């Protein structure tokens, strides 16, 4: 990417952010549209988010026990699984998997509308495409991605429990005690705050790429790919800085 394009895109994302938040707080609030998007973005991503975190929790439990076979380490499996899931893997993996799904969906939908003049038609009928299309997707993402992350964390911890009891012969009580002893409010809060930021990146990138799609079906394909890549990169890079920030704060 040339520096000029990079500057344009960064500026464009910033401008869209401003427009979207202004449109969000300005009445009327179209709750119907928001709820439909929450269903589309949140409820329908539940399966994929659940599978991701359940298996991550199971793998975490297994890897920890097997790679650190020192006596006694298995009694701390609960805290290893819980801390790494809640602080790190839950938000990031959910954002990567669910973000790929919903971000590409946003770009494909809005991009198709763009190349078939439907966005222009909205504008010509005195309707703001940002208010009508971007705001519901942004609101739904900001609400649903943290929600999915919390559900995913819980499922992941349960996945770890299954492995801990069946393979490593811990009692469920021992495992869960360790989980609840180790987790504090800072862990949970930082995880949710992270997924909030990720949701913002995914929604704004997805919508921005859609609104700037040119060049027919081919262009929609390119824009969609770009969204998946850019959203994933933004999630991973921002994760590092957010992690540093939250360790300073907590």
């Amino acid at each position, binding site marked *: 990417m040339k520096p000029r394009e990079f500057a344009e895109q960064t500026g464009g994302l910033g401008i869209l952010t401003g427009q979207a938040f202004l449109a969000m707080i300005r009445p009327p609030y179209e709750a119907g549209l928001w709820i439909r998007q929450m269903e589309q973005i949140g409820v329908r991503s539940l399966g994929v988010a659940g599978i991701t975190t359940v298996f991550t929790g199971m793998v975490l439990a297994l890897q920890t026990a097997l790679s650190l076979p020192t006596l006694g380490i298995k009694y701390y499996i609960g805290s290893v699984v819980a801390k790494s899931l809640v602080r790190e893997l839950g938000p990031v993996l959910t954002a990567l998997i669910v973000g790929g799904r919903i971000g590409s969906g946003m770009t494909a939908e809005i991009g198709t509308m763009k190349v*078939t*003049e439907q966005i222009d038609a909205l504008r010509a*009928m*005195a309707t703001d495409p940002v208010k009508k299309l971007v705001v519901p997707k942004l609101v739904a993402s900001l609400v649903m991605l943290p929600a999915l992350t919390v559900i995913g964390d819980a499922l992941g911890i349960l996945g770890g429990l299954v492995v801990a009891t069946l393979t490593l012969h811990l009692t469920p009580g021992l495992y869960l005690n360790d989980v609840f002893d180790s987790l504090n409010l800072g862990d949970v809060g930082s995880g949710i705050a992270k997924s909030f930021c990720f949701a913002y990146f995914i929604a704004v990138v997805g919508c921005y790429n859609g609104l700037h799609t040119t060049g027919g079906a081919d262009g929609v394909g390119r824009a969609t790919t770009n969204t998946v890549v850019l959203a994933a990169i933004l999630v991973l890079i921002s994760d590092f800085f957010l992690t540093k920030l939250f360790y300073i704060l907590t």
Partner: protein
Amino acid sequence: MPEALYEIRGLTKRYGRKVVLDGLDFDIRHGECLVILGRSGSGKSVALRQLNGLEKPDGGSVVFDGTDLAGLEERELFAIRRRIGMLFQSGALFDSMNVFENVAFPLREHSGLSAPEIGERVRHKLALVKLKDVEGKMPADLSGGMRKRVALARSLALDPEMMLFDEPTTGLDPITSATIGKLINSIRSELGVTAVVVTHDIPLARRVGGRVALLADGKFRFIGDWQEAERSDDSALCDFLSGREEEEDEENVA
């Protein structure tokens, strides 16, 4: 109403280094139908998109009923766009909505009418474009001509005083094109709307045109009524008109 509905002065639009519109000056009078002819890529659609502010000019002014659109922000344009209907080249129906919802869309957004009133208005607009029993269909299930007519009904939903037609017959067969031309005429006579039609379809231009303008190299090579156009010895205009003569004959036979 003596004054023109639109006064356009020095309208300039560039894409990068390419000058698409090079200082256009023209008026659009109340109740007239102005046809803008031009070859593909001559910038006639760009010119049309300046008339409701979908694109901003790089220079000059577009004064609609006393307001210069060039100086307005997107949100300030909304009040004006409610008075201006636009029919897009592809129809631009929302393909997630059925026909009824498409036509009802601007009414639900802006009219403040109750649901039964909206239903009434939608049926009336669909009747205006000679369509019935299609309300439940999705745009994907419609033919090209029907899609254009639904789009026309939608653009008329808010009773605009101005209509913009972007290549209304592109992609349609000659007979359907003729129907669209007739519809434009009947709508204009029934509703008294002012219209601008951008096209390269000469039979359509003859059918609907009051005045005609030829856009080439960012300027109007010609602007005037049809009698003047026929008598004109401007080579570009003659070529453009005669290049389509045969097709028009074919259509009359059909």
